[in-house]
């Protein structure tokens, strides 16, 4: 089954609840298992939080565009912003053994998505592609 949806949200944290709701519904349409859906919701929320914090430096009046696609291959989310360029090499989560505030979001994203890649061709802002391959009948 192929489904797609596009949403544009202001870069304000109050819209993260909408991101989670749409992500959850699209993941549900892809046939993903419930536990995986919760992981995916958290990961997409974290990716958008990173856009607000790092690309837009907390500016809540910018735009974030999310494109969702489901296909027999997997579940894909493309997140675009027009903020400051993010250097992928700087996106390293903290060592999980090193207990301190922050640095967990990237671990949540990489735990659930098989592909985490920035499109280097985008001149202004960032285009992050997240893809989770379909895994077995229950999606786990």
């Amino acid at each position: 089954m192929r489904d797609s949806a596009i949403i544009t949200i202001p870069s304000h944290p109050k819209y993260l609840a909408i991101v989670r709701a749409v992500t959850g519904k699209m993941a549900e349409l892809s046939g993903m298992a419930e536990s995986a859906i919760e992981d995916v919701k958290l990961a997409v929320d974290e990716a958008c939080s990173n856009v607000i914090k790092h690309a837009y430096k907390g500016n809540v009046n910018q735009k974030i565009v999310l494109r969702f696609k489901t296909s027999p291959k997997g579940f894909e989310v493309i997140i675009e912003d027009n903020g400051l360029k993010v250097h992928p090499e700087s996106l390293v989560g903290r060592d999980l053994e090193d207990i301190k505030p922050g640095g967990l979001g990237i671990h949540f994203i990489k735990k659930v998505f098989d592909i985490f890649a920035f499109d280097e061709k985008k001149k202004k802002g960032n285009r992050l592609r997240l893809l989770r391959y379909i895994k077995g009948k229950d999606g786990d």
Partner: protein
Amino acid sequence: MEIEIVDYKGTKVMELSGEIDMYTSPELRRELMGLLHKKVSPLLVDFKEVSYIDSSGIATFVEGLKGIKTYGGRLKFFSIPDRILEIFNFSKLDRVFEIYRNLDEAIKS
């Protein structure tokens, strides 16, 4: 997210409900830091009605734990739903937070 601070037989209990994310965690931080400023200990946190937590919520509690330890206080969590517990486990925070099954266990420990 809703936060209610109740007094249970002389012990402060923070009852949380709803979603803790980048939007709501600043309010959680304000409440938590307010209690730490008064050197409350032990501080119990009831997670029973928490439906979601992200890294900003977790970071707030890590900061709270570090703060409470500066005066020898204890931060105790109880009634954590399985989904939230999974996130704590994945983050290896189940090793640093005091986690109890229910209020009675948290009080007695």
